[in-house]
């Protein structure tokens, strides 16, 4: 018999209520409602969710996806890319501007990585799509 998802949640741990914050988990479509004080996490059904909450309270990170223009003999094509690691949420709008300023000649293959530098921090882009 399939266990109900609720039963897979771990027992509630005591939290420091003054520091505690609530989040909706972004790891998977289950969207667990999490509460954390930075140390303990309640409401997660998996360890990835617990790690998400501990990170979210310090500095939210997101995988950034966008497209880069590629010049080809048959015209400009949009190449989908993502950051290989999640980037700080507050930097997304500036990082995306840097990526949008890129322009490739030809089409890099899916799985190709492109290293960039943003304010001294390395950012690696991964090509996520195949174009004709």
């Amino acid at each position, binding site marked *: 018999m399939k266990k109900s998802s609720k039963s897979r949640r771990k027992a509630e741990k005591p939290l420091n209520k003054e520091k505690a914050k609530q989040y909706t988990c972004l790891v998977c479509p289950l969207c667990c409602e999490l509460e954390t004080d930075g140390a303990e996490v309640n409401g997660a059904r998996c360890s990835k969710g617990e790690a998400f909450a501990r990170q979210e309270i310090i500095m939210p990170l997101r995988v950034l996806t966008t497209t880069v223009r590629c010049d080809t003999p048959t015209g400009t094509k949009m190449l989908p890319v*993502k950051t290989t690691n999640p980037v700080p949420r507050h930097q997304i709008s500036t990082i995306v501007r840097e990526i949008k300023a890129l322009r490739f000649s030809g089409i890099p293959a899916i799985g190709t990585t492109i290293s960039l530098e943003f304010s001294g921090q390395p950012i690696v882009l991964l090509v996520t799509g195949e174009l*004709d």
Partner: protein
Amino acid sequence: MIKHERYDVIIIGGGPAGMAVAVGAYKAGLRRLLLLERHPRLGGILNQCIHVGFGLRYFKEELTGTEYAARYRTIFDQTGTEVKTGSFVHQLTPGKGVTFICPEGEFTISSEKIVLATGCRERTREMLTIPGTRPAGIFTAGLAQEMVNIHGILPGREVMVIGSGDIGLIMARRMTLEGARVHAVLEILDHLSGLARNKIQCLDDFGIPLYLQHETLQIMGKDRVEAIRCRDNTTGEEKEFPCDTLLFSVGLIPERDLLVDAGSEPGNGIHLAGNADYVHDLVDKVTLDGEKLGRSLGENI
């Protein structure tokens, strides 16, 4: 041009559902498989889904839609299914076959088993019967997604999203990242239509407000959208939002026009796969359902 006169299965649609049916049928021992796709490429709507959130269940890894398509394509390619792209099926005869047009002409091919893997279509402004003018600047969210992600065209600058479906939420973020200003998402119901995670990472992260129980009353504008008028159904207060672009994300409908035109129902050798059967929330489930259907086709031949 086509290898066989008869096929074990003809699959209409080369998105995730169609490819999955071929994989399932191959596993069940069927070898004469034909897949017809109207676009030049396989992958369907996955090709315009550049965001992450796909594959956690099937590949146990978070992928973009485009990565999911490429990854599944390698599995599909092992089936040796005959693929005919640029081929548009316009007629279906239950139990007999299909007729399609392609650059080489029009052809009729026979098979006792036909699978509609034709996906679903977005509901439009017309289906909601919203009063007002008919200016330029009104798009479904999925169309805007294709324009931005595949063609590199930004549909507009001052955007309102009508309906809180997942594609609308995803496009609110996407348009923001591309430099547009998304003023708000209006939802007539008292709850979000899409996933909670998409409200957070697509709206909250970018400070885009979601207004629940807001009914769109009128679209204004002569040549281009100029504003919309809506009503907060909790207070009765009416508001006007100036904008030049409207994105509709108000539901999806399984695409079965071929079946309707044939005056037929599923059964009698006609099968529905993926979103043509019912609208799935995750592509992983489309793949699993499609493979299951494909296997069942081999078992009762």
